[in-house]
């Protein structure tokens, strides 16, 4: 079988979502920030009763820089059999925002957005207006920076190692087991000698 691999497309590194038609079952829609809240309210009224997930992606170098992604699911809100649930409609709403833009919170529409929005706030530094309790959720409360941003380093600065005290250096201890067999006592003797020097 020939390889299905295609060489990477040049120049598309900043927004891969725009270069390819949808490959999953969801209907994908891009919404402007100003129309986001109204559109989500309309979708909820349309029957998208479950907010499956809420996340964000950082396209560093693109304008607008971030995408906030809402995954919605059309679910019955009463007891339903497998046939009644069927294949529920899926919707993915993407909204591009700039660094510093405030996104309207959807906690009042779907209470489950609470922790998801806190997580986006925590890891991307995106603020949600109207969230009842917007604070860090995964990182410690006094953490600086938003770890999932692309310009956030994978590692922190290297810590300086405290130097070993001279008596603990291997070079100050004679190699080999002393012939007496009293290893511990002999080692302590050596350490004592090294300390005195």
């Amino acid at each position, binding site marked *: 079988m020939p390889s299905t691999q295609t060489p990477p497309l040049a120049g598309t590194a900043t927004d*891969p*979502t725009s270069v390819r038609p949808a490959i999953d079952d969801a209907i994908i829609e891009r919404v402007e920030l100003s129309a986001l809240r109204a559109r989500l309210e309309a979708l909820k009224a349309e029957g998208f009763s479950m907010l499956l997930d809420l996340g964000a*992606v950082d396209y560093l170098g693109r304008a607008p820089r971030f995408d906030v992604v809402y995954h919605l699911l059309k679910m019955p809100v*009463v007891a339903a059999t497998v046939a009644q649930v069927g*294949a529920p409609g899926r919707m993915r709403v993407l909204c591009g925002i700039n660094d510093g833009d405030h996104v309207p919170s959807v906690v009042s529409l779907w209470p489950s957005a609470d922790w998801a929005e806190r997580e986006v706030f925590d890891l991307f530094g995106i603020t949600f207006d109207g969230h009842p309790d917007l604070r860090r959720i*995964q990182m410690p409360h006094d953490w600086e*920076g938003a770890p999932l941003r692309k310009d956030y380093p994978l590692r922190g600065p290297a810590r300086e190692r405290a130097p070993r005290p001279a008596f603990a250096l291997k070079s100050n201890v004679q190699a080999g087991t002393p012939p007496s067999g009293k290893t511990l006592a002999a080692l302590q003797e050596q350490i004592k000698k090294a300390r005195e020097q």
Partner: protein
Amino acid sequence: MSLSTTPLTPEIVSHEGNAMVLSMGPQHPSTHGVLQIMLEIEGENVIKLEPEIGYLHTGIEKNCENLFWSQVQTNVERMDYLAPSSNAFCYVLAVEKLLGITDAIPERAQVIRVLQAELTRIASHCVQLGTHAIDLGAISVFFYCFDLRENILDLQEAAGGARMHPNYLRVGGVNGDLPDGYLERVDALIAKFPGRMRELRGLLQANPIFQDRTIDVGYMSPADAVSWSVTGPPLRASGVAYDVRKALPYSGYEHYDFDVPTRTDGDAYARFLVRLDEMEQSLRIIEQARKKLNTPGPVVIDDPKIVAPPKETIALSMEALIHHFKIVSEGFRVPPGDVYQSVEGPRGELGYYIVSNGENRPYRLRTRPPSMYNLQCLKGMAPGNLIADLVVMIGSLDPVFGEVDR
């Protein structure tokens, strides 16, 4: 960038009148992991609560952005450590969708994946049942559950080489065919299972203490469950028969004959019954998968750009050597695009939203953690109940903190 945050102090939950503020966890045996719950209580009654998560945050999503596509899979298996194969399953399906090779996966590989996913579901429910029963004072159930789980972990070890994180599924198929004697061991498990289930049901289902502790505790209406994004057994115990395996079949689940157990009571006892029934349905799927595995066949896709060629060919073919070298040293590349793929994990809909920009590493990998959303509904469920019932609710929601915090 300014991020003002409220520090974590008892003042998060306000004092009112006789109310007392209590921190439950993060080192509490019945929170099933490092969960802290700030409780405002009046006597034994919970007035308000605020779960604090994040104690187990390990930055898996950030790490994944810096690993090869094949290395990421090792990491995602660490999220839901009770059902590692489910995570790997969802991830490989998503990557295969991005690669456009979903239809080219060999039949046998798909069946083996289903077998692994269902085995891991039974093992995960065993842990839930055992620990849930321990919370309620029934210690011996735990041993029965772990005995059954032990058999499954042995099977995972035989297939993938490790008990907890087998890393057996691969993009393009699975890592080598099942070892000799594996199917006979599956047969032995199938033969042993009904007896074990009878014992489990006998220990708990009609147990008056267990019923007293769980019936009418942690009630959740279908509307509440949907608005809190609850999925999996808790959603089905509220009456909504949403199962990704039926709603959006993947990997050939449409060819298996199984039911989606539901209950309409929506309490902790209903969730317990749904899990028991689900284990039996999983066994039905395992039996059918077992029959399909009688016919041999390839277990990985025949594409040397994605799957390294067999080791024996390296000494014979220059091309095979080059492919092998390429895959080991720089991995494979995935065409640009974004995809959301979900599977029915033991805890609910597990999803990965993956963005690729054509490189040999994912650009972004966002998890849809079922445990996190299931746990979150405690805020709506627990107020007005006893602290002892809160323990039952946490147990019946079955959170796994590797996944909640990632």
